[in-house]
């Protein structure tokens, strides 16, 4: 734009150089300035638009991630720019997790396939991603392959690779080994703890039984002691026994308690071991765990029963002891009262009946009556109180019973719950086993199907390979055969070729000999022909000044005779014009001489033709001939133009040709004459033609004869 303007400026400057240079330059400068200002405006506007577009794109990409992705996909290097401007693209968390889940599922399936191919082992259908929140697989909780879990996490991000069979088998074997070890250890520990807890529980139960027995014995003894009226010695024995029994009971109880605590301890340890082994989550351990749990439960139940029995016995014993205490207390009080009344009387007053006086007896009886009254009153009181007490006691008993009932109910509930849980677990274990068995059968079926398929494929491949190999074999065989045949054929061909060449040579030799004979014959004939032709050409030369040659008939006849079987020569010989045969031909010299006289005549009648043939024209023609001078001989051009057809010129050309021996050309030129001149030279032309013809034929014949002669002559 600027350049164009400058050019325009220069042009205008040159135009208006003298007139208004300054203003035009100024104008142009103004133009250029204006142009440049508008150009800068355009440039600035363009820059603004571009930057605005880029900024808008970046902002929108920041707001809409899909747009950003689309831009990054379609425009190269935009991802770099956008990353620079906005940071790396944030991934949408919702979708990819689902995708990962889905991706995790098929890789697990693929892995399943791979592992199935590798070895049968524990089923890995529990697969993937127990860490994933929305897992719908039930076996998620029983997922025991941590490795699998960790393997699946990178699986969605990596392309799936089939693990080699050996690795898989090794892994499986390793896992199995580990499992076995763990299960062995767990079972060992379980057994140990079970044994110990069983022993402890049995011990505890035994101790409890013993305690129970002791308690029962004690209570019995106590009852006996309370109710039986036996002799004092026996009573003291009884009391002793009772004390012994009490001691026994306490020791038994202590033992029982200790044993119970030990049993509880061992049971707790067993429980902890069970929980631990449950925590390991190995399927082979489960039945052991289950059995252990059942045992534990049974032991707990037995223990509780025993404890309850012991407790009931204890409560009974408490009642009996309370009763015994009360009785003892009463007895002691009575004893005290009696002793207070009769201080001198000993406790064992039954043995002192003879020592007592009547006063003492009366006092005693009065005291006894008073006592009886008191006792009656007390009894009545007691009865009333007793009712109340009984009610209270009943209430208390009820409460205690309720408590005991509650406890019993709770324990029973617990037991039942425990039972139910154990049942459920047992059922679960059974179900799992069943399912495992089913899975195994399915897998076995799949394996069988796979082996069948592989067998089929192998068969097919075998077929194909066999076919291919056979094909290759057959092709090779064919090749060999063809080569063999080719070789034999070649040999045969060579032999036949040799035979043929030999035969041909023989034939050639024969032919050569024959042709020699023929050739000699031919040569003779050719010679004859040549001689006759020579005679003919010689006879042509016999022409003298105005006398034509001798008639050529004889020579022609001779020629004809000598070439009887030669068509070409015959044709030529018969091509001789009749006139020449009958009359002979003129020689060239005579024709030349005649032409000279003709020439002047032709010149004189040059103007006469069909249209001009009055006498006046004749006069004019004669005048022309007298006045026109031309060269007597002029070399004719190679091509005649229209101006060369003037008779004078033609005659000069013709005489030139005749002088130089070219009769043919002269005849041709003379042939161009028209009108009267032509009529005048007609005969000359005829004669010339005749001569030319005859000469041509003779030349041909002689050439032919020469050729034939040359052909037949053998080169030395």
């Amino acid at each position, binding site marked *: 734009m600027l350049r164009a303007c400058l050019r325009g400026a220069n042009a205008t400057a040159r135009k208006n150089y003298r007139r208004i240079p300054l203003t035009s330059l100024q104008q142009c400068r103004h133009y250029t300035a204006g142009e440049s200002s508008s150009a800068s405006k355009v440039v600035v506007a363009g820059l603004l638009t571009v930057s605005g577009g880029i900024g808008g794109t970046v902002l929108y990409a920041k707001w809409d991630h899909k747009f950003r992705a689309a831009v990054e996909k379609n425009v190269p290097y935009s991802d770099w720019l956008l990353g620079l401007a906005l940071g790396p693209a944030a991934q949408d968390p919702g979708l990819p997790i689902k995708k990962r889940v889905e991706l995790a599922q098929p890789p697990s399936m693929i892995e399943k396939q791979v592992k199935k191919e590798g070895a049968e082992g524990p089923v890995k259908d529990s697969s993937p991603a127990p860490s994933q929140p929305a897992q719908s697989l039930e076996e998620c909780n029983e997922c025991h392959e941590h490795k699998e879990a960790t393997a699946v996490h990178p699986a969605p991000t990596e392309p799936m690779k089939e693990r080699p069979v050996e690795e898989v088998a090794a892994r499986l074997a390793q896992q199995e080994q580990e499992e076995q070890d763990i299960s062995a250890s767990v079972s060992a520990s379980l057994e140990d703890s079970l044994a110990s807890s069983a022993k402890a529980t049995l011990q505890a139960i035994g101790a409890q039984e013993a305690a129970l027995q002791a308690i029962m014995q004690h209570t019995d003894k106590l009852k006996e002691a309370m109710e039986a009226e036996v002799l004092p010695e026996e009573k003291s024995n009884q009391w002793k026994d009772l004390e012994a029994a009490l001691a026994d009971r306490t020791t038994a109880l202590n033992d029982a308690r200790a044993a119970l605590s030990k049993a509880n301890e061992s049971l707790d340890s067993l429980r902890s071991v069970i929980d631990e082994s449950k925590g390991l989550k190995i399927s082979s351990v489960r039945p052991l765990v289950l059995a252990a749990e059942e045992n534990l439960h049974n032991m707990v139940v037995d223990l509780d029963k025993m404890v309850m029995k012991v407790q009931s016995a204890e409560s009974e014993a408490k009642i009996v002891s309370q009763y015994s205490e009360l009785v003892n207390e009463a007895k002691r009080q009575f004893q005290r009262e009696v002793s207070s009344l009769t201080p001198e009387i000993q406790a064992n007053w039954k043995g002192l009946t003879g020592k007592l006086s009547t006063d003492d007896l009366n006092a005693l009886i009065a005291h006894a009556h008073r006592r009886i009254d008191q006792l009656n009153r007390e009894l009545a009181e007691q009865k009333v109180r007793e009712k109340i007490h009984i009610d209270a006691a009943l209430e208390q008993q009820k409460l205690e019973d309720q408590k005991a009932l509650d406890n019993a109910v709770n324990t029973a509930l617990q037991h039942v719950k425990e039972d139910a849980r154990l049942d459920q677990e047992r059922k679960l274990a059974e179900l799992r086993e069943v399912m495992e068995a089913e899975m195994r059968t399915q897998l076995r079926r799949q394996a069988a199907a796979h082996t069948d398929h592989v067998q089929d494929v192998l068969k097919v491949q075998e077929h194909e390979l066999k076919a291919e190999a056979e094909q290759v074999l057959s092709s090779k065989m064919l090749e060999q055969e063809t080569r063999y045949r080719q070789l034999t054929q070649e040999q045969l061909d060579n032999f036949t070729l040799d035979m043929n060449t030999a035969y041909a040579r023989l034939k050639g030799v024969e032919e050569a000999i024959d042709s020699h004979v023929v050739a000699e014959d031919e040569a003779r004939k050719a010679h004859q022909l040549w001689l006759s032709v020579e005679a003919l050409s010689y006879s042509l030369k016999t022409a003298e000044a105005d006398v034509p040659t001798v008639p050529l008939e004889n020579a022609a006849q001779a020629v004809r005779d000598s070439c009887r079987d030669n068509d070409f020569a015959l044709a030529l010989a018969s091509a001789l014009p009749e006139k020449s045969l009958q*009359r002979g031909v003129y020689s060239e010299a005579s024709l030349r001489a005649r032409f000279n006289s003709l020439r002047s*005549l032709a010149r004189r009648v040059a103007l006469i033709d069909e249209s001009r*043939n009055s*006498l006046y024209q*004749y006069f004019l023609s004669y005048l022309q001939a007298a006045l026109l001078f031309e060269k007597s001989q002029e070399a004719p051009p190679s091509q005649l133009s229209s101006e060369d057809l003037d008779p004078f010129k033609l005659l000069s050309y013709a005489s030139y040709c005749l002088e130089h021996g070219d009769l043919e050309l002269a005849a041709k030129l003379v042939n161009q004459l028209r009108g009267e001149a032509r009529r005048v030279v007609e005969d000359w032309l005829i004669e010339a033609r005749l001569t030319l013809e005859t000469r041509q034929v003779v030349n041909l014949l002689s050439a032919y004869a020469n050729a034939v002669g040359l052909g037949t002559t053998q080169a030395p």
Partner: protein
Amino acid sequence: MFSMSEKELGKKWDRCLADGAIKLGTGLGLGIVFSVLFFKRHTWPISLGSGAGLGMAYANCQNNLRSHYMLHRGDKEQ
């Protein structure tokens, strides 16, 4: 046998001249005769006669020379 077309013209001229001479003479003679006999020795019959003779001779000569180029009635009819 040996027809020479070039001699024809000469022959024609000869004939022309001969014919012209004859006709001229005849005309002249006749003219003289007539002038003497009938026209009181005026010159005009002589010149007339010679002229006529000459003229006839001219015409004859021309005709003779043209004869080759003229198509005769007989040829046409043929």
